[in-house]
C-alpha cells in the first residue's frame, strides 16, 4: 500500500514516544495531522519527484478554498456540539439564486455586494437551521438532513435547474483575477487567484471569534455541556443561531467562490461533498462529540484531504483503485489518530 501505508509508518516513527512530544500531542491533536500531512508529502515526493513544484502548492491552495470555508463552518458547529450536513445545500441555494437575481436585475453589481448578499442569504438559511435545532431539540444531524433535502429540493424544484454558463459582470471576472502568476518551463502559466485570500482571512476571523471573544468561549462551552452553559447565563439560543448562522455565512461565501472559480453556476454542484468536509474537520482533531478542535487543526485536516485527493494520479494509482486507497487512507488516518491520542492521554 503505497501512499496511505507509508505515511502511517512514517508518522508513527516521527511521533514516537518522547517526553515533551507526548504531552504536546495530548494537548494539540492537530500535531498528528501535521505529521500525517508531511509524511504523505514525503512519500509522494519519493514516488514521483514531479510533485515538488510550486504549481502543486498553488493548485492545492486553490483547491482548498471552498472545502476550507465549509470546514471552518463545520468546525464551529462541531465545537458547539452539533453537526451540519446542510451547508452544501445552503451554498448551492444561495449561489444559484443570487446568480439568477444578479443576472436578471443587476448584471453590473460589484462583486463585493454579491458576496455580501450571499453571506446574508447564507446567514438566513443557517439561522433557520439553528432555530430548528434549538426549538425542536433533536440532534442537529437529523435536522440538517431534513433541511438539506428541503433546501436542495426547493432549489431544484422551484428555482431552477439550468446551468448558468455566462456569469454576469464582475462575477465572471473575479474568478480570473490573479494574485501572482508565473510561467513554468513548458510555457504553462501558473497563477494564484485572488479568491484564495478569502480562506486565510476567514480562518483568522474564525480563530479570533473562537479564541478571543466571549461568543467563542460560549460555543466551546455549549459543546462541553449545554445544560450547564444555559444555567451559567449564556444565551444558548443565541449561540445556536450564531454557530449555524456563521456556518451558513461561510457556506454562502463558499458558494460564490465556487461559481466564480468554476465560471458556471450549476445548481447540482456541491451537494454530496459534505461528508468529506466533516471528515477533514475530524481529521484535524475536532471530536465529533463536540467541545474540541482548533482552526489550525481544521486547516491541516482540509489540506490533508485535498492533498490525498490530488496526488492519486501523481502517484500513479489507476482510477479503478483510487477509491480503495482513499477509503483505506481515511480508516488508517482515523485509526492512527485515535490510537495516538489515546496513548498520550494519561489514563484518568
Amino acid at each position: 500500500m503505497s501512499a496511505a501505508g507509508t505515511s502511517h509508518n512514517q508518522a508513527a516513527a516521527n511521533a514516537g514516544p518522547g517526553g515533551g512530544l507526548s504531552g504536546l500531542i495530548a494537548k494539540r491533536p492537530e500535531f498528528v495531522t501535521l505529521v500525517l500531512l508531511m509524511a504523505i508529502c514525503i512519500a509522494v515526493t519519493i514516488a514521483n519527484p514531479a510533485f515538488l513544484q510550486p504549481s502543486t502548492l498553488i493548485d492545492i491552495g486553490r483547491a482548498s478554498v471552498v472545502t476550507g470555508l465549509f470546514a471552518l463552518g463545520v468546525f464551529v458547529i462541531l465545537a458547539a456540539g452539533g453537526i451540519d450536513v446542510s451547508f452544501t445545500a445552503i451554498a448551492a441555494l444561495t449561489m444559484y439564486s443570487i446568480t439568477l437575481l444578479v443576472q436578471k436585475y443587476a448584471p453590473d453589481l460589484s462583486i463585493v455586494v454579491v458576496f455580501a448578499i450571499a453571506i446574508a442569504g447564507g446567514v438566513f438559511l443557517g439561522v433557520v437551521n439553528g432555530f430548528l435545532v434549538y426549538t425542536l431539540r433533536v440532534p442537529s444531524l437529523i435536522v440538517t438532513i431534513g433541511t438539506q433535502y428541503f433546501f436542495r429540493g426547493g432549489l431544484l424544484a422551484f428555482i431552477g435547474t439550468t446551468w448558468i454558463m455566462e456569469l454576469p459582470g464582475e462575477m465572471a471576472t473575479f474568478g480570473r483575477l490573479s494574485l501572482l502568476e508565473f510561467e513554468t518551463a513548458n510555457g504553462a502559466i501558473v497563477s494564484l487567484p485572488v479568491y484564495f485570500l478569502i480562506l486565510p482571512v476567514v480562518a483568522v476571523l474564525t480563530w479570533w471569534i473562537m479564541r478571543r471573544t466571549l461568543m467563542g468561549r460560549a460555543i466551546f462551552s455549549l459543546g462541553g455541556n449545554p445544560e450547564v452553559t444555559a444555567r451559567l447565563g449564556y444565551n444558548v439560543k443565541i449561540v445556536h443561531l450564531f454557530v449555524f448562522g456563521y456556518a451558513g455565512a461561510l457556506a454562502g461565501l463558499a458558494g460564490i467562490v465556487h461559481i466564480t472559480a468554476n465560471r458556471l453556476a450549476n445548481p447540482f454542484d456541491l451537494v454530496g461533498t459534505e461528508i468529506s468536509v466533516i471528515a477533514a474537520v475530524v481529521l484535524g482533531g475536532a471530536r465529533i462529540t463536540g467541545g474540541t478542535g482548533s482552526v489550525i487543526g481544521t486547516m491541516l485536516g482540509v489540506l490533508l484531504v485535498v492533498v490525498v485527493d490530488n496526488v492519486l494520479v501523481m502517484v500513479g494509482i489507476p482510477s479503478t483503485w483510487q477509491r480503495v486507497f482513499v477509503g483505506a487512507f481515511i480508516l488508517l488516518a482515523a485509526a492512527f489518530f485515535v490510537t495516538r491520542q489515546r496513548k498520550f492521554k494519561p489514563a484518568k
Partner: protein
Amino acid sequence: QDGKAITTVVKISGIPWFDRMETGVNKFAEQNPEMDIRQVGPATADSAQQLQIVQDLVATGVDALAVVPMDPDILEGILGRAMDRGTIIVTHEADNQANTHADIEAFDNADYGAALNERLAQCMGGEGKWTTFVGSLGSRTHMQWVGAGEENAKKYPGMELVDPNNESFDDANGTYEKAKEILRKHPDIKGFQTSAGNDVLGVGRAIEEAGLAGKVCLVGTGLPNPSAAYLDSGAITAIGFWDPQKAGMAMNAVAKFMLEGKEITDGMDLGVEGYESVTVKPGAGKGLLIVGNGMVLADKDTYKDYLF
C-alpha cells in the same frame, strides 16, 4: 391513436442535455396533441431512482416508455415485465439492452469514438502524449468511445496514451482538478479526449488557465452553448455530439409507430432530422437496433450553427 400516453424517462432531470431532449419531447407533443406525451427523470444520477420511476410508471399503465437508461442492465427486469404487460419500450444510448422493442442510437459508437480521436490526432499532428476521460468506468458508451479512440490512435505511432480512463463523474470542477494534476504530472501532454458532457468544460478551463489554449488539444463530447467560450479561446479544439432534441423526438416517433402497429424497416425515415434514413438491425435482445446519422463534430468555426 387517441389519448395514448408516451413517457420519456431520462437519466437525470434538469441538466442541459436532457433539458434539450425535453424540448424535443415537447415538440413531439405539439405535433401530436391528441397524445399524452411527457418527460420525467430522477433527481440524482442514481440507477435505483430511475428504476423506481420506471416501475411506478409501468404501474400507472402508461402505453409506451421511451427510456434513456442510467444503466441498461439494472432496468432489464422491469422492462421485461413491462413488455409482458404490453407496454411498448423504446430505449436510447443502450445498444446492449435486451428487453426493449427498439433501441435508437444517433450513430455507431465505434465510428463516433474514432471520429473524435481522428480530430484529436489531426490537431496533435499525430504525435505526443494524450489521455482520456470517461464519465465513469461503468458507462458503457463512454468506454466504447475511448476504446475506439485508442484503436484509432494506433494508426499514429507517435501518439502515446498516458494514465487513461480518468473518471470525471460528469463534474466540471472535479475534472478541472484532475486535468490540472495531469498537466503537472505530464508537462508535455498534448491531447485530451473526453466523454461526458461536462468534461470539456473542466479540462478546457484547466488548459485555458494554464495559458495552454491552442497548445494542448482537447476533443470530446460537449454541447455547443456551454462550450462556446472555450471554443472561441481555443482551449477546446472541437466538440462532438448528437442533438438530444432530435434523439428525443426519434424515440417518441418510434414509440408512436409501434403503438400504431407499424413496422420499422431499414432505410426508413423517422421524420426527424438525422434520422431520415435509419439502419435497422436486430438488437441485443428480441428488439431492433435503429442507428441514425446524427453525429456532429463542431469547432470554433462551425459551432454557431448548432446553438443549444
